[in-house]
């Protein structure tokens, strides 16, 4: 077995890189998420571009030491060129053989691999399914292996901190993190401060973690074989104040901001489901801000309570993922018929059915657009990056309340759990939101009378004197809102509901694309695969390729100028993490174009490399 002393090769050639991908991998109990998060916080605070991708096992605790139990956290950071969490790690921290095994396929050539040598015993190897020791058998040839006795050194480092064995074991992750900090020449004060604050009341634990961190740092520092490593310059960004934020947190905050701008309380009716639960949990913390959270008995009660709250005047939201979305479709129809504002967030995960609950996918798009009984149009938006979740949430509330319509906001596991720096917005910077609330009797008013521009009806909430009225799920008379079975009226109402949603196109920004002048190939994407698509096209363009990219956040309705972009290109390829749902949608909405497809349904995001390969192939044809 190679020890660190024997490690061959040096970590060269990486300093020049614009960005670096590092992956922390270990057993679920090894604290990899924490190590990754702390690392991210540090580099974010120091002004790097970052993108992260946590990847946990779907079992709460799969058997220790097995591949199924590996928990990973990938960070991509750099001064520029960070278009997603990165394809393959430049540096892998593998706390046990299983962590190594599960990442072997994905390694770049000449990767730096940090392993805990103490965890490579016979039983550990067996559990991970290694017949022979990969540190010994040539498996890692071509890589730079840093095999440190992490467990024993951590124990030694904190021997007299007064912790029991189990707690001591829990500090291993900090030893590894310390090593990484040293490898990347990053300061540790942020992380040290975290422990001091978090374990104020258990100073022994704080102390042990800090000691482990420093021990790891020192271990690398004092190892002569390891050169000073990567230095990544802070990214060139718009001046301003930034913070590191995950997609789900940004979405929750955006909802709060949107409700505030609309001058309304925020109501969330929701039921836990991976990967959407965090939004509810984040909002539940902010009771101080007037946020009402009902953890409902199921998804149906979640959306129905939100519809009730919307009727009664709150900005109402429900959050879920695919299976829960399925359960909400009947009630979405009610919101369509009663023309009440409602935001439905679907953080997509791998399907069908329970599917791959912790993996990412974009396969609920057609469900969002047309997965209801009857002609039941709603607005559909999609969030493209973690920080963008904030803006989309604000926009969803703006559209829902100003146009009196349900809005489905699609996020996806990859965006929801990923993180990136967010340029903090103040409420003043956000667009104004003016719901069509009516509080005083107006002789011209009828419950289904409409604004000529938006076709929105008025929002008259119970409690308003002299404007009592009744709404419901039966077809409504075009004007009075009374129940109507008239055939002409039904056809008119079906058309009105469709037009109202289509009119939203008058109020959203025009579609942009990158690659002015290109004409050969247009790459089309939507939702959370923004980063890698832009990354791949940007790289190809810098290689002089005739390619452009346009990415959709507004799914239904599409921006008005969409066709005028499409018609500039010889070929259009729609790239998505499903079997071609957006492509099929485009075929229905803009049938005049021919759409090629590039699809991936593996529960994983695109990689820049595979995209480039595909695009090169198409360009070569």
């Amino acid at each position, binding site marked *: 077995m190679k020890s660190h002393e024997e490690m061959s090769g040096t970590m060269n050639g990486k300093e020049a890189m614009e960005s670096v991908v590092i992956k922390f991998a270990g057993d679920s109990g090894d604290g990899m998420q924490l190590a990754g998060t702390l690392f991210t916080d540090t580099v974010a605070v120091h002004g790097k571009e970052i993108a992260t991708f946590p990847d946990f096992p779907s079992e709460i605790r799969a058997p220790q030491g097995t591949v199924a139990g590996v928990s990973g956290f990938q960070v991509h950071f750099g001064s520029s060129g960070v278009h997603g969490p990165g394809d393959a790690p430049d540096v892998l921290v593998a706390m046990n053989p299983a962590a190594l095994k599960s990442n072997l396929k994905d390694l770049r050539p000449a990767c730096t691999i940090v392993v805990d040598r103490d965890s490579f015993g016979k039983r550990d190897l067996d559990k991970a399914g290694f017949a022979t020791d990969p540190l010994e058998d040539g498996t890692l040839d071509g890589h730079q292996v840093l095999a440190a006795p992490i467990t024993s050194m951590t124990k030694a480092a904190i021997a007299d901190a007064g912790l029991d064995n189990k707690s001591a074991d829990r500090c291993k992750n900090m030893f590894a993190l310390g090593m990484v900090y040293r490898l990347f020449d990053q300061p540790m004060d942020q992380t040290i401060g975290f422990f001091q604050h978090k374990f104020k009341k258990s100073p022994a634990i704080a102390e042990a973690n800090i000691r482990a961190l420093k021990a790891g740092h020192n271990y690398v520092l004092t190892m002569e074989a390891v050169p000073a490593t990567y230095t990544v310059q802070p990214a060139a960004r718009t001046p301003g104040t930034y913070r590191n934020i995950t997609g789900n947190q940004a979405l929750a905050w955006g909802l709060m901001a949107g409700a505030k701008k609309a001058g309304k309380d925020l109501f969330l009716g929701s039921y836990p489901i991976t990967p959407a639960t965090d939004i509810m949990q984040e909002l539940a913390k902010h009771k101080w801000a007037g946020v009402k959270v009902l953890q409902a008995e199921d998804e149906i009660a979640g959306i129905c309570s939100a519809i009730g709250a*919307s009727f009664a005047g709150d900005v109402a939201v429900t959050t879920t993922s695919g299976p829960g979305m399925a359960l909400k479709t009947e009630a979405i129809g009610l919101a369509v018929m009663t023309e009440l504002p409602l935001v439905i967030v679907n953080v997509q995960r791998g399907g069908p059915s329970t599917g791959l609950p912790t993996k990412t996918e974009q396969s609920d798009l057609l469900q969002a657009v047309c997965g209801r009984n009857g002609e039941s149009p709603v607005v559909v938006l999609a969030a493209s990056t973690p920080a963008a979740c904030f803006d989309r949430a604000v926009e969803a509330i703006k559209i829902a309340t100003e146009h009196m319509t349900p809005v489905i906001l699609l996020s996806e596991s990859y965006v929801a759990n990923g993180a990136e720096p967010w340029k903090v917005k103040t409420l003043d910077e956000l667009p104004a939101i003016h719901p069509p609330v009516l509080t005083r009797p107006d002789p011209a008013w009828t419950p289904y009378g409409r604004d000529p521009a938006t076709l929105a009806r008025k929002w008259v909430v119970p409690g308003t004197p002299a404007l009592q009225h009744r709404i419901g799920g039966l077809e409504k008379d075009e004007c009075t809102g009374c129940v109507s079975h008239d055939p002409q009226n039904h056809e008119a109402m079906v058309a009105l509901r469709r037009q109202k949603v289509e009119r939203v196109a008058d109020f959203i920004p025009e579609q942009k694309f990158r690659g002015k002048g290109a004409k050969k190939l247009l790459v089309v994407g939507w939702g959370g695969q923004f980063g890698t698509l832009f990354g791949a096209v940007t790289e190809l363009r810098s290689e002089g390729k005739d390619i452009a990219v346009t990415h959709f956040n507004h799914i239904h309705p599409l921006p008005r100028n969409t066709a005028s972009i499409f018609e500039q290109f010889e070929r259009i390829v729609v790239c998505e993490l499903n079997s071609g749902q957006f492509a099929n949608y485009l075929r229905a909405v803009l049938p005049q174009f021919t759409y090629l497809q590039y699809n991936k349904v593996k529960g994983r995001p695109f990689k820049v490399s595979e995209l480039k390969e595909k695009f090169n192939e198409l360009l070569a044809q």
Partner: protein
Amino acid sequence: MSTIGTPAQPLFKPKEYASSQEVKWCPGCGDYAVMNAVQRAFSELGLKKEEVAIISGIGCSSRFPYYMDTYGFHTIHGRPAAVATGVKLANRDLRVWVMAGDGDSLAIGGNHFIHAVRRNVDMNFILFNNQIYGLTKGQYSPTTERGTVTKSSPFGTVENPFSVGELVLGAQGRFFARVPDTDVKLMAKVMVEAEKHQGLSVVEVLQNCVIFNDEVFDAITSKETRADNQLILEHGKPMRFGANNDKGIRLRGLELEVVTLGQNGITETDLLVHDATCASNVLHHLLAQMRLPDFPIAMGVIRSTAGPVFDADLAAQMKAEQERSKYASLDALFLSGNTFTIQPGTDKPDGIT
């Protein structure tokens, strides 16, 4: 939020709560009587029209909101309790009334029903129990008596029905009343009490469907038998009933027993005195369980006890959090914790703010 005194002068007469819509129930349907009772109760309570939100599901009975000149929402089948919970949480000043059939509340809506009961949201749930699906033309419901022949049970049902009262109590219910649709006065009285009660009030109306389940409550409600077959409960009063008011209910071990006053030396002091407000629900269970022919059917408020009210507690928690919050505004929240600044010109971070 339901502290209502009886106003000196009612704001509106009962009929003034009616909307201009034509009422479309079958002639003779029990739903008319329920509407009359609700209008009387509103009048007596002095409710403003705009402060009332009537939420229903789908079913004959669920057409109720259309006929009232208040705010109303005819939602989807089975979900009115969930919708109403959202209404109440959005605006606690509203008087929220749920109108739902036995199918709406106990078949498809069973889950929302028991959870609304458990949470004890401050609203009134009027359960129109006609033991049948009326709107869909006569299939059996979860309250249909075993053996009943209906459109969907041509050979009689083989399902045990729910007993509404027992289910409510089993779900930690704190207010349960039962009334026959033939007694508008009693209905109105009970509905006033329901509105005054803080928390979820379930009122089960034995409602006759003249078309698909006619006369199913006849033994209970017919002129000839009702005095003997109904025990009208009043809190603090001994449990007496009967055409001659000479029967009563006595406790024997863990069971109830019908006795005749004057026989075997039994006097009123031997009878159980109704206590709707006691925390223990055992007596209420016993009363809710009484069945013909051995017992009369208990009517009136069977249970009405104070307890934590969800919307009130949530509001209190929000208020407390508001008071002790470390954030003055969302802007403050967004700028809290670990942030960093890129300076104009330098494009370099200047450290932690």
